[in-house]
């Protein structure tokens, strides 16, 4: 009799199964040997749970059915002993190719099941997502609220050493804060006020492009050298020129600033502690200098800026080199700046149509001011 019984029992039925209950109440049956890869499930089995449908193992709340199936895929692959390290690595690489939302959920679920290798893998993937991106990009990817005040991002450095470079930096900050207040005011003011920007962004940029041919050339090559993926790749060229013109003007103005000083100023920017805060805002400052010339006119510092040909070639070369260095520092910010510029341009486009003649006149006057 027993022999007949054993004939009927098929090999598959001898596999042990455990019953798992996910956060939404649904119960699944899973091969025990794969589920045992998770320490949490292992412990529960040893405590006697999961052997039948009536006593399933309750998985922690962060494990929903979708995550569970992913985790089980992972366990199924790695539990098999005969795989080479190379196979495992390539499986892992393919496994983590998913959107960041799922990555976060998976990390959370794997952590609650104490599956450390998977937590490591997903953490590494998340780190790769974060690495090298600007704060704005990171915020967008992970839907983080931008709830730090501008002040908090802008905290100026206390100049205890009376360093001229820090003074310059603080002045930039002061200007930036002023611009912010200006912007706030202008936003609430009447529409006619807003013609500082009526010329289209493209016009502006092409003007600058025309005057800074070589810098732009070197800049794009430099950005292309960076191997970060950029969604808006083609947009990198114009913003470079935008800041180039300003940086050129800065440099030419403070011509006596030797290279070391400029590099040292870069050092402040590149100091990672300040980087995030400084970067956005020095960039903001330079962008605003370009677009809102009204604010520019008031400051003496940048009045003497020549955009190009009055500088002698040797100096221009030095400046270009400094500019390259500086721009490399600010490089990571271009796409974000570009987006801002474009969004500002879009806001103001309807105004341009109505105030055309006035606007162009305005444009030339402001230029004259600069060239004085």
């Amino acid at each position: 009799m027993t022999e007949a019984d054993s004939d009927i029992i098929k090999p598959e039925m001898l596999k042990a199964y455990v019953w798992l209950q996910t956060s939404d109440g649904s119960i699944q049956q899973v091969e025990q040997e794969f589920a045992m890869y998770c320490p949490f499930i292992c412990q529960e089995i040893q405590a006697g749970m999961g052997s039948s449908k009536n006593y399933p193992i309750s998985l922690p709340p962060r494990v929903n059915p979708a995550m569970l199936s992913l985790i089980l895929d992972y366990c199924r692959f790695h539990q098999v002993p005969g795989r080479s390290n190379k196979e495992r690595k390539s499986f892992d690489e393919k496994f983590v190719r998913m959107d960041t939302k799922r990555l976060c959920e998976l990390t959370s679920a794997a952590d609650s099941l104490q599956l450390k290798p998977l937590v490591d893998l997903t953490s590494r993937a998340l780190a790769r997502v974060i690495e090298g991106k600007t704060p704005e990009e990171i915020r967008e990817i992970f839907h983080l609220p931008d709830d730090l005040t501008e002040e908090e991002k802008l905290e100026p450095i206390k100049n205890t050493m009376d360093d001229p470079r820090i003074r310059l930096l603080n002045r930039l900050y002061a200007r930036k804060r002023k611009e912010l207040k200006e912007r706030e005011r202008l936003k609430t003011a009447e529409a006619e006020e807003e013609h500082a920007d009526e010329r289209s962004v493209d016009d502006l940029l092409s003007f600058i492009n025309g005057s800074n041919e070589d810098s732009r050339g070197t800049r794009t090559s430099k950005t292309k050298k960076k191997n970060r993926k950029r969604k808006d790749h083609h947009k990198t060229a114009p913003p470079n020129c935008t800041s180039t013109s300003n940086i050129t003007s800065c440099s030419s103005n403070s011509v006596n600033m030797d290279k070391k000083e400029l590099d040292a100023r870069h050092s402040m920017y590149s100091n990672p502690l300040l980087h995030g805060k400084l970067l956005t805002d020095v960039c903001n400052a330079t962008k605003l200098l370009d677009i809102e010339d009204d604010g520019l006119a008031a400051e003496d510092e940048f009045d003497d800026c020549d955009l190009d040909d009055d500088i002698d070639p040797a100096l221009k070369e030095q400046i270009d080199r400094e500019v390259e260095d500086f721009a490399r520092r600010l490089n990571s910010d271009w796409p974000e700046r570009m987006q801002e510029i474009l969004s500002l341009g879009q806001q103001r486009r309807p105004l341009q149509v109505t105030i055309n003649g006035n606007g162009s006149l305005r444009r030339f006057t402001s230029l004259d001011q600069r060239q004085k």
Partner: protein
Amino acid sequence: MEEHTGRDLISELPQGIIETILTKLPIGDAVRTSVLSTRWRNKWALLTHLVFNDRSAIQFHDITALQHIIVNFVTRFLFLHDGPIHKFSLCTSYLQSSPDIDQWLLFISRKDVKELILELGEGEWFRAPSSVFSCKNLTRLELVRCELDPPPNFKGFLFLKYLSLQQVLIPPDDVERLISSCPLLESLTLSYFDSLELTVRAPNLKYLILEGEFKDLCLANTPLLVAISVAMYMTDDIAEHFEQSSSCNFDKLLGGVPNLERLIGHIYFTKYLSIGNGRGRSRITYNQLKFIELYQVSFDDMKEVLVVLQLIMHSPNLKALQISGSSNTSGTMRSPDSEIWDEKFSIDCTFHKLKTVKLTDVSGVPHEMKFIKYLLERTPGLEEMSITPGLYVTDKRLNMLIDLVSFRRASPQASIVFIHEPV
């Protein structure tokens, strides 16, 4: 721009995972997360594993400016940091000895540090301050290019498991004292020591890596040793010293390691072992020894061949053997000491478990061919033997092949691969 339609999932992950993620970023990026949002303002400051290296270094023309940046960054980082620091790793070629580093180490030593890794640039070697010795809970210490001078009342790192000293200037007595005062030591790496006489007493030691000129090497109390890798340099002084010594190096080094699983010897290792090696001495059996890798074995020297034979004869469970010949063989074709081989061949000794044999830089000298013949006849389980002749051995290759083909093989499934790259 996109509104926040998605949920902020990442900020809700537990701090442990956030730390794992932030540790996998270059430290500059990790600090930059402080501007992301209010919740992220201080997540970076709770990191317990701090790794400062040149990965996030910016290319600068001016080295002093870069040094200034690095020093500033680390100082400010430590100042703004909150909580315990379990790991501090500083590997940068731009910094040399400086008082800032001493201050950082003092700061770290107060923070319950467990792992300390220091590798500074070439130039003036850094002198480890006494605060290093007051890190009571160290489990891992790696130092490269520094001067170490343990104070006289130093009792040892009671929890140290992993010690690695490379290019470290330390008084010779203090090395032994340091090793023996770390009772839990499991892994020891000593590199680039000059003329060191070393006796290792470490009851829990499992992994030993040595590289340098050793006048005398003795493993006195290392019963749990599982893997040994030695690269023995030899100067003329040391060679002379050996000629006068009467002790048996083989016994001193490998006499007390019954649990050895892996043995790797570079450069003059076999020569070192062959000195003072009397024949017919009883040796311990290495029951766990599965992998032997020996480089620069000079098959001209019968004594070195004897060492190799003794090693494999006392390792019944040997699985893989890799021997690289010495490329500077004397071209003299002395008649081989064939009596020794007759004796060896007459002893009934089979290597049942040996599956893989790899011989590189084979020059085809008589002892070598006899050795290959010896192996082939006694390895019934052999799966593959690969032979790569030395680059400059051009005329002997055909003879080698002829000999190889004529040897008897105990293993029917053995494949012999002669790797021949056209010269």
